């Protein structure tokens, strides 16, 4: 079980500071939700932690089990146990889900160690059954022509297969109808219920997702910082009062 510590993190895109001193610790197996209006730096936070090259970390640190990940390449971070569920997963024509996931699993083996193909498919099919994904899915190209719901289910399938220590889920609820949302949430909850569940950082714009994936902690983000933290009732309060409340009540505290 692993812990993620984000310490006084500053992130810029080009010359523009987006995240301005963010602190957050996710203890083993905990689910934290970050909520906030658009443009406040939520997605930037997730992508920068995963190592996206467009985002520059200008200060602070991100520690996974006490080790800084900032000097690592994105693939090293992933093998160290970080997982980013994308808001907009890339479409990769011509690369089947089976081959893609196989490469990802193979990358985690020691050098020279061969993947046990039978065991791999057995595990893949079990996870797919859990997520109610048709087996024909594996021969389709990654996210190519997928509906919004299929893309998000594909992200959860990858998360289930790769068994990360810490998952950053970026607006996993966006673009989903209620049925798709329920299936995706059930998938996440089954991962939470397994032995050694990952810590999860849920980034969301709406409270709706939190009805299905109940967080241990809720944080409100505004202008690159966390301005208020609480339990799941904070999400309901935010839902009732709207983001204008954040702007008027909470923003001045950080000004």
């Amino acid at each position, binding site marked *: 079980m692993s812990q993620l510590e984000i310490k006084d993190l500053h992130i810029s895109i080009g010359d523009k500071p987006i995240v301005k001193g963010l602190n957050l610790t996710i203890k083993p197996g905990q689910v934290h939700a970050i909520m906030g209006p658009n443009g406040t730096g939520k997605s930037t936070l997730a992508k920068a932690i*995963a*190592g*996206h*090259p467009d985002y520059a970390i200008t200060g602070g640190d991100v520690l996974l089990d006490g080790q800084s990940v900032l000097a690592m*390449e*994105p*693939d090293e*971070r*992933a*093998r160290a146990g970080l*997982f*980013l569920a*994308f808001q907009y*997963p*890339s*479409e*990769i*024509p*011509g*690369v089947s889900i089976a*081959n*893609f*996931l196989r*490469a*990802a699993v193979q*990358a*985690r083996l020691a050098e020279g160690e061969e993947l046990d193909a039978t065991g791999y498919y057995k595990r893949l099919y079990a996870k797919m059954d859990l997520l109610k994904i048709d087996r024909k899915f594996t021969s389709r*190209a990654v996210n190519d022509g997928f509906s919004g719901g299929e893309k998000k289910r594909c992200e959860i399938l*990858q998360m289930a297969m*790769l068994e990360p220590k810490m998952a950053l889920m970026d607006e996993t609820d966006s673009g989903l109808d209620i049925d798709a949302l329920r299936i995706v949430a059930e998938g996440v909850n089954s991962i939470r219920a397994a032995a050694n569940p990952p810590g999860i950082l849920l980034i969301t714009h709406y409270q709706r997702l939190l009805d299905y994936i109940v967080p241990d902690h809720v944080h409100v983000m505004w202008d690159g910082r966390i301005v208020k933290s609480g339990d799941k009732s904070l999400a309901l309060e935010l839902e009732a009062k709207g983001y204008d409340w954040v702007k008027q009540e909470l923003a001045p505290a950080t000004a």
Partner: protein
Amino acid sequence: MAQISTPAPASVVGSFTREAFDAHLARVAHLPPWWLERQRAAYARFAATPMPPRTNEGWRFSNLSTLTLEGFNLPAPVRFDQLAHRELGVTGAGHLVFANNRLVASQPLDASTADAGIIFDTLQNALLKHGDLVKAHLLAQPSKLGSDKFAALHEAFLEDGAFIYVPKGVTATLPVGVFHYASGPGAAVFPHTLVIAEENSKVTVADFFRSDSQPSTLNPQLGERQFAVGGNDLYAGHGAQATYLAMQDWSRETLSFQFNATVARRDAKVLSLNLHAGARQARHESFSQLSAPGAHSEMLALTVAHGAQEFDQRTLQIHQAPNTSSNLLYKNALLDQAKTIFSGLIVVDPDAQKTDAYQSNRNLMLSDEAEANSLPGLEIQANDVRCTHGATSARIDREQEFYLESRGIRAAQAQELLVFGFFEEVLGRIEHQELHDRLTEIIREKFKT
């Protein structure tokens, strides 16, 4: 290994002197006089034709300074057991193995296929036993894409090759494989595969071109300097379905020429796929002639260009009859300082109304130092046609690359996956699973070196 430090003046015959030609003729003296006469005439054409001048549009962007004919030889025979041969991988399929222009091993077709009248034999035997068929189809199309000198050299020095004849209405259930090896320093080889698919027949032929060469002392990855001028004639009669695969994997120091000429008759369907992996400089000229209504030709190519390799591809789709279609898709992946040239032309004759022709060259740039050149072209004399062409060059999509890497896949492996994804549009057209796997394997090996 001989290294040329300063470019020599373009010699007209280089190593392919009159003495070398006479030595070749002495080895094939048992073949029919008409054929030897053609070889003599071809040698005269070769010797009289200058090296391509820089002003020749058919050589635009090509590196002419490295087109030297010096330092090659007609190689001595090698034994089959000296070759690092890999099988076709299709159980029961017939194959012929040539090394240094001679047959060194073969597996005939099984008896039932032979009973159906399919002929799978050497060109020499075909010249002796089926002279009229060979005469009608062997090198029957004139060179039109700029390499007349090298095409003449091929015809002059052609010693042996494969002959595949499928009679009317017969389906060859298994593909046949033809392997061509070049062995030894300076080896010059002239492989040829002639495919005749008669009315309503069906056949798949796979050509493999490989060097059996010692690693170069200067760079172990490059191998020996060799010379290959290969040709393929593919004739598809009325309603025939012919599939032709060519996998070019010569040593990285080889100078290679490869000529494909396809004739598709009424309602014939031809698919050809050229995989280009080997050679230092490889020129490929592919010509499809849609000569009767309903004919269709798919012209596909995949190239993995590494190091300082140059792949020079020239294509011609000629529509001579109404309601014919052709579809060309050439995909190149370029790494390092590699260079590719694609120059394609669609010609539609005045009578060829309702022609549907497509031509596309797509380049995936994996290095800032690589260079892809595209020269698509149309020449349309009919007024009721649909012809489109296009060329694109793009880098790997950074978001796709990040997506793969964010799953723990290392950068090199991510690149390989994206290249295979890029190639899949072409690879996916190969229905035969073993051949599909073999193509994939050659591409994968190229990424390991």
